[in-house]
């Protein structure tokens, strides 16, 4: 416990070395955010010739540790206990803070997922250090080894570069879905240090009594997304998008108000409060392009907007614009795609 203490600058920042990343797990498996953390952590560590240290907590972690090493993690710190099977604030933050105190990392990155933020804010206070939330760009100044943590602000219109010069570790949480999953590239002399831990009873007062898994539609790894907004006019029109998505091997996405209205389930929502996606093709049908939606899809490789309003905001984010009614444009698109596929069917390799 920290008590009412101020943030404490350290006198010897040079003693702090290496890049810590916290890896999220569920059911004994590394989550996507864990791989994203390894990717960005590895890049930063390599730039200053330091080690990437991955933290994994769970019931059993050795398989996950091996996977982390395959992705380039130099050192794995693992903690095992039945009490660590699922993320819980107090046991996790206590163990992680102990590691930080012992190992003195220069940088500590945590995913800005819900449990990640839950953890990061406690660790920052416990270490009497600073943390920059929800970063979309992370880099290091090679000579000073200062972390340049960039986060969007003012409704995503500006990027603020935030430094924490005097406190260690320099902490940041990284927005999920922004950092690329790295190619596998095993560490040369990996070191795996796993210990079994007895978790103090005073830390396990919070019990998880139930977990209702969401049948999740994972849009973050979709190659093609056909997304609908209020411009669809009615719930039934999502069927049209489903049909198109099936034909081109895509998934269906949605703007928030369509989910609010119950036209489609929340799992399909793209944007600030939905998923952040970066498919090869994003089709925005009847979506105006408000910033909260744009945030979640602007990194798509190609964007097609279908909108009756020639001045809709989505247009400036689009590669192609079909200025027409979705009820006309979508069936036309589907028809032409079917025609094209039929004419070129012979080219398809049959497995």
């Amino acid at each position: 416990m920290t008590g009412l203490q101020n943030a404490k600058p350290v006198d010897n920042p040079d003693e702090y070395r290496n890049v810590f990343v916290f890896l999220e797990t569920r059911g004994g498996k590394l989550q996507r955010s864990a791989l994203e953390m390894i990717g960005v952590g590895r890049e930063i560590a390599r730039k200053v010739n330091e080690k990437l240290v991955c933290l994994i907590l769970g019931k059993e972690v050795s398989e996950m540790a091996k996977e982390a090493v395959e992705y380039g993690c130099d050192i794995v710190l693992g903690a095992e206990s039945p009490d660590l099977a699922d993320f819980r604030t107090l046991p996790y933050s206590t163990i992680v803070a102990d590691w930080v105190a012992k190992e003195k990392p220069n940088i500590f990155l945590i995913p800005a997922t819900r449990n990640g933020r839950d953890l990061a804010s406690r660790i920052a206070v416990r270490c009497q250090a600073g943390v920059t939330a929800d970063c979309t760009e992370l880099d290091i100044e090679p000579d000073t080894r200062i972390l340049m943590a960039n986060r969007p602000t003012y409704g995503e219109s500006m990027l603020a570069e935030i430094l924490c010069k005097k406190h260690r570790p320099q902490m940041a949480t990284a927005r999920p879905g922004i950092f690329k999953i790295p190619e596998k590239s095993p560490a040369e002399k990996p070191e795996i240090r796993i210990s079994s831990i007895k978790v103090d009873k005073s830390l396990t007062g919070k019990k998880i009594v139930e977990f209702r898994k969401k049948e999740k539609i994972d849009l973050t790894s979709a190659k093609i997304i056909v997304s609908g907004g209020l411009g669809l006019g009615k719930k039934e029109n999502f069927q049209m998008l489903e049909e198109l998505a099936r034909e081109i091997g895509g998934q269906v996405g949605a703007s928030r108000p369509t989910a609010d209205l119950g036209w489609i389930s929340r799992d399909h929502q793209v944007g600030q409060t939905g998923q952040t996606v970066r498919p090869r093709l994003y089709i925005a049908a009847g979506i105006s392009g408000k910033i909260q939606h744009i945030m979640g899809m602007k990194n798509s490789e190609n964007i097609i907007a279908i909108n009756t309003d020639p001045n809709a905001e989505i247009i400036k984010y689009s590669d192609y614009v079909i200025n027409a009614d979705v009820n006309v444009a979508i069936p036309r698109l589907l028809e032409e795609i079917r025609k094209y596929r039929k004419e070129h069917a012979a080219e398809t390799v049959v497995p």
Partner: protein
Amino acid sequence: MSLEIVVMVKQVPDSQEVVIDPVTMNLNRSLTRNVTNRADENALEAALQLRDKVGGRVTIVSMGPPQTESTMIECMARGADRAILVSDRFFGGADTYPTGLTVASAISKLEKFDVIFAGEESSDSSTGHVGPGVAEFLGIEQATYVSKVDYEDGLIIAERELEDGTEVVKVPTPVLITVLLNANIPRRQTLRRKIDAIRRGIEVWNLEKLGMPPEWVGVRGSPTIVRKMRSIKEKERAAKKIELDQIPELVKELYEKGILKLEESQ
């Protein structure tokens, strides 16, 4: 049974009206209207529902400049029992660390606290770090991103909404809970309560009352600094116009460029 409930509330610029000074890149506060952070209204409503069920008292705590009073009165007009505004020129420019420290310090001065509510995040700094930070300073349990709260047999039961599902937790008090935006429908202010709140007024606490050194709080107590701001340069996109009768050419182009692939179909 009677619970001492605290709600952490922040006044924020109305995001619809944010004006950025083109020279300094700072928020032009003189042109923005101030409102109560929306998620904090949901936190307040969750607190009031808990009080109405179990009994007890709801105290609002906010750190902010004097104009935050309007937010405090609004919260009382919705049903809060007591309001403490922690305000001092030393608190200005605080990042999440000293903000949490200041709010936690104020809460620690209360005789007792059982449940502390905060919003999931504030609309202007959107870190979601201040709530859990306060829990760490006070050394108590937390449940974040909560959509539903109940209380049975001395335990808080909270539903946390995570990316991959809903986690139901049971926690003993004292506990800090962060409430999701739109988790509930905040009750309205009543005129009677509003008049009463204005008549009673709010309590204002300064740094001296908290008894902390000035260099612990505000900008001096903040580990992080903003080095620079730049506008986010979006990738330039062609916005090529496609008429309805050009859709066949569009389809051809998409396949030829490999944006669509013949083998990708379900």
